């Protein structure tokens, strides 16, 4: 028997009411993610990928369908259970880093463990370890505004890793970085995946999706492609090097 998938999404829907109109941001999405996978969710803005990320991150609850992560039926959970699930199962990496500006890098990384109720000493040990693993052992006592963009994102990644979650959930993690720094971060994700972390990377950039072993393309709230990153990234999207003279694929 094969191992149960880490994430199992089945016919997931999320509808919003905008005035009289019902918007189907997510319209019956199904896929599995196995442990150790690195999957990109790619799509244009408005394709539903942010909605999907919020649902997978347990920040939001679906209108219909089911979502399991690590054996938890998320759609049935109370608000407190969702908070605990976010704390233990999911490590968020945001486009805008979302660090607390008044706290040091160390305090930022410790935060998830505070909500887990770990003793101070253990918290610090793990946070130091996490910061060292992303190459920031010498920047622990700096505040976010004393760090470069790339360093901030590394702090955020350390924060995502520190609780040893089953899923790293990254939302446009290179969106606010220059290309060289973005490249570093992507390489870091590659290393983390090599070490066994399961990663779900949400992006609108086909180039990034092409780097992932697997990609899921969303369009109008539906999965339109699911396969190797290099293939999925190019489907339905302009060619990577679009010529200027108006050729449309």
């Amino acid at each position, binding site marked *: 028997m094969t191992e149960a998938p880490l994430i199992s999404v089945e016919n997931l829907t999320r509808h919003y009411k905008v005035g009289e109109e019902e918007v189907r941001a997510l319209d019956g999405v199904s896929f599995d993610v196995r442990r150790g996978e690195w999957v990109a969710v790619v799509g244009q803005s408005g394709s539903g990928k942010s909605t999907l990320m*919020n649902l997978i*991150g347990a*920040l*939001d609850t679906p209108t219909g369908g089911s979502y399991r992560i690590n054996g938890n039926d998320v759609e049935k959970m109370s*608000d*407190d259970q969702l*908070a*605990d699930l*976010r*704390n*233990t199962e999911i490590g*968020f990496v*945001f486009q805008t880093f*979302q*660090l*607390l500006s*008044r706290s040091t890098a160390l305090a930022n990384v410790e*935060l*998830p463990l*505070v*909500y*887990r*109720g*770990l*003793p*101070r000493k253990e918290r610090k040990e793990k946070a130091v370890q996490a910061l060292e693993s992303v190459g920031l052992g010498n920047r622990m006592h700096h505040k976010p505004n004393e760090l470069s963009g790339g360093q901030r994102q590394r702090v955020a990644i350390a*924060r995502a890793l520190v*609780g040893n979650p089953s899923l790293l959930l990254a939302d446009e993690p290179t969106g606010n970085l220059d290309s060289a720094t973005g490249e570093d971060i992507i390489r870091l994700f590659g290393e983390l995946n090599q070490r066994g972390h399961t990663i779900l990377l949400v992006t609108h950039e086909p180039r990034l999706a092409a780097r992932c072993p697997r990609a899921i393309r969303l369009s109008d709230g539906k999965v339109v492609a699911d396969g190797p990153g290099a293939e999925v990234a190019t489907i339905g999207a302009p060619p990577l090097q679009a010529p200027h003279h108006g050729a449309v694929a």
Partner: protein
Amino acid sequence: MKRARRAWAELLEGFRIAFGALVGARLRTFLTTLGIVIGVSTVIAIVAIIQGLDRSFEEQIQFLGAHTLYVDRHPWIQSDNTWWMYRNRKKITVEELRAVQRESTLAVAVAPMAGTRGKISRGNIELETVNIRGTSEEYLNANGGGVQAGRFLVAGDVELARPSVVLGTDVVDRLFPDEPVAAAVGKKVLVAGRPFQVVGVLERQGQMLGMPLDNVAIMPWPTFGRIFGTQRNLTLSVAAPPGKVSELESELTPILRRARNVQPGRPDDFAFNRQDQFLKLYKQLTGALYGMAVGVGLITLIVGGIGIMNIMLVSVHERTREIGVRRALGARRSTILMQFLIESAAVAALGGAVGTAVGLGVAQLVALLSPLAAAATPSAIVFGIAFSTATGLLFGIWPAWRAANLDPVEALRYE
């Protein structure tokens, strides 16, 4: 165990955040607490002054014995326009004194008291308005107090109407300047122009509502009668055994009615005066002040609380994204609620502590610069801080509730 540890960690985190927020925005913290500071300091100062007044009044009122009834024609405390009711009452005379002495079984001591103001002189020192009192040897037993030098009047002074006088310390100090108090004993003085021998000096009694109690000269009441006339109204002070003042009053009423020929069915034409009546009156007065202080305090606390609520709402708004981040990292609604409640309570407690300190300072200043005594009890301090903290909690509920119920998705996206 794990839950407790988590709650503890969150609590500490809440305090850490509150501290950071308060120190991070000092001016705002200052302005926020100002309302509470003013409210609490006002109340603390007023309460301290009232408590000081109460205490000094209770000390002063001790010159009226706690177990003593003062029988007079009229009550000493009268409601505004009733004096005419008492004006035509018969004087209290030796008849009543004798009746009480003869018939009362409860009375421990009975002393008549007659009084006027008059001159006392010695050599070329002349005191114009000394309170001159005529009484008996039982005066001290009935009223309390004692002599610090020499002796009090004895039965012989009263029976023989001797020219003996016992002086209060104010009188001694002025008649015998630069001499020890005991030096007065045995000396001659002139009271209302007649020679008297000083037989003793009373203990110092201080003041009663600004009236000096030591500007006094006490002589046997028959002697007093010879000089100032025998037709004066007397006040009888009758001491009861401890705790039996009311029983004594019940016993004396028929005795006095008979002695004064009050017909059955007619109201008493005399009145009993007691120390606790004064205390009651005084407590009524300061009770009203207390009420006002509490009212003012409540209003300013409400105003201060609204200020805190206002600032907390702004603070929640400003930290929307931080709230989103914390929620994403595993903070529950209750965690966020607690965090903001701690913050508002901390601001208010800070205001309460500063306000208490300022209020006590003002009270001390008042005590220093005016005759008002200010005394703060520890309970006033505890109440000041506790009430302001409670205000912070109360007015922090709504902002904290709003913070806790933010949608994490919206909060994270908030610019």
